[in-house]
């Protein structure tokens, strides 16, 4: 079932949480709402669930307008960040709660709870209380409980936010698999871009109650729509300069500006840490002389922090393991950094000048 949110506005006092926002989740899609805290992503999710009322705008399930429908009647499965399991009920009773409310027979409930326990890989724990489970197990019980009422849409609010890194990683992959097995339209909220990219079919990047960009993880990562998205998706090195004759000029270096770029007196080049190479001798006239400040080689890439006197900025460079071993930089050494790829943004208002 597709979900459409049209021109929704929500204010809390003087604070505008959502500002005439329109977004759609296609039927069977796994959509991520990604943004920093205060971007309105959780509010949007709660409005979709009916737990919060929009001041303006319409929420549609397929073509049906459900804006005024009580959350009880919406048929959503909602998973809370802190699980919200019924603490005085066993795992079995938690998962069976929705069916008990619907007056299903004991047999049907037992049968379905068994299936769900199998699905979330928690067989044998049905008589435990939530307090006797680990965080990851609790979140899977919460998911099973939401799925038990066969919801038309699954809404997850920072589902892995309260878990430690390893469990989070496992549950992400598991959620993706689960969605492939049980393809319910799913919307989940996260502030972790890695999580969004790994799990979602499409990502909605939000900021201050507005949508900055919508697209597949690949599209969003490779073609960020604006500086905010670029910056939010990971560390960037920023060079200030100007656009002139299709070139972005910053100090002694030049980047190719996007086609049809108008001249602009101030523009910004964003360079990802992995798009900078580090060499002992300058690769070209555009290489920047840098002084190595700090090296952290523990990880999939070696993270190098260095300072450019010419630009007065600290650069972050990610070297591949092989590159690092071949180069073996040491702190205090002077090397040359060569940006290979940059995204250029010039403020829109400057075009008119």
């Amino acid at each position, binding site marked *: 079932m597709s979900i459409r949110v049209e021109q929704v506005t929500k204010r809390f006092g003087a604070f505008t949480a959502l500002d005439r926002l329109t977004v759609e989740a296609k039927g069977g899609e796994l959509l991520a709402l990604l943004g920093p805290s205060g971007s309105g992503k959780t509010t949007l999710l709660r409005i979709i669930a009916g*737990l919060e009322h929009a001041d303006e705008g319409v929420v549609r399930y397929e073509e049906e307008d459900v804006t005024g429908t009580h959350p*009880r009647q919406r048929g959503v*499965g*909602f998973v*809370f960040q802190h699980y919200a399991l019924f603490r*005085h009920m066993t795992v079995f009773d938690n998962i069976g709660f929705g069916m008990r409310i*619907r007056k299903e027979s004991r047999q049907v409930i037992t049968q379905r709870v068994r299936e769900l326990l199998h699905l979330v890989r928690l067989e044998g724990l049905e008589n435990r209380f939530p307090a*006797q489970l680990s965080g990851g197990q609790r979140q899977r019980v919460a998911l099973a*409980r939401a799925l038990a009422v066969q919801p038309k849409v699954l809404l997850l609010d920072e589902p892995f936010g309260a878990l430690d890194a390893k469990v989070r990683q496992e549950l992400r992959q598991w959620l993706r698999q689960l969605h492939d097995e049980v393809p319910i339209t799913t919307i989940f909220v996260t502030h972790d871009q890695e999580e969004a990219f790994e799990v979602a079919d499409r990502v909605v990047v939000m900021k201050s109650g507005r949508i900055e960009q919508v697209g597949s993880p690949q599209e969003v990562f490779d073609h960020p729509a604006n500086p905010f998205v670029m910056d939010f998706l990971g560390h960037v090195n920023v060079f200030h300069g100007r656009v002139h004759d299709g070139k972005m000029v910053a100090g002694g270096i030049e980047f190719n500006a996007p086609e049809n770029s108008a001249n602009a007196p101030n523009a910004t080049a964003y360079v990802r840490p992995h798009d900078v190479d580090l060499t002992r001798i300058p690769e070209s006239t555009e290489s920047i002389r840098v002084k190595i400040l700090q090296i952290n080689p523990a990880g999939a890439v070696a993270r190098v922090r260095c300072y450019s006197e010419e630009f007065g900025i600290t650069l972050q460079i990610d070297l591949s393991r092989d590159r690092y071993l071949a180069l073996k930089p040491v702190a205090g050494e002077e090397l040359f950094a060569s940006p290979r790829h940059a995204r250029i943004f010039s403020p829109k208002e400057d075009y008119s000048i």
Partner: protein
Amino acid sequence: MTEPARRGFSRSREPAWLKWLLIGIVYLIVVVLIIVPLLQVFSIALSAGWNAFVQKALVDPDSLHAMWMTFVVSSISVTINIFFGVALAWAVARFQFPGRTLLISMVDLPFAISPVAVGLMFMLLFGRQGFFGSTLEEWGIEIVFSTPGLILATTFVTLPFIARELIPVMEAIGPDEELAAITLGASGWQMFWLVTIPNIRWALLYGVILCTARAMGEFGAVSVLSGKIAGSTETMPLRVDKLFHEHDEPGAFAVASILTLFALMTLIAKAALEHWVLASIKKPDADEL
């Protein structure tokens, strides 16, 4: 007994004599102020012999009626306070509304006002010369010098107990479990009975016990409003007071000992509840994680 020393301050810095001196003082205060008077009540009550005690406390019709009145007044007051307490805690813990903070501090007001002042206040409102007096008289409703007055005063004085117990518990639990129940299809009532009440049941029971103990012992406000009509509007504390002033010491202490016994029973119930809840919280150990 080494537990208290290990918490807070380190043991090495505190000289042993200071520790034992302080503990000794505490015990002395407890013995002088609580244990001795308590034993005194029972010993004077029984000073005229067991038969006289039974006669004064359990056979005398006025004493029996006072016991009945205490039961009626405290059970109705506690029931009213259960509804009020749950409703108030719910409102305060789940919703933001203008005047919320004021409401929370208003709940504590009965703790701060002297019960005698409360009694006078109700007297001025509902008495014959009072603000609502003539209207109530027209409708034939009696409040002052009758049972409703006693219930009103007792309810007012014990108002904070249950609400005060529930507000922090409901705030700590948060609304998520209730919202989860709603999204799973529960109606408001189903949510309340299946999720809210089980979550607050221990706090509620604890509040009820404290509230009951206080309601049974209430004297000041009730004393102003009751008119102290023996066999009619006299509760146990009022009966004790009256017998004492009539120089019937064994009678006064006999009734007082029964009242004390009730209080001790609520205390034991409270201790048992605390023990029980603690045990049920500790039991689920997160093994095999």
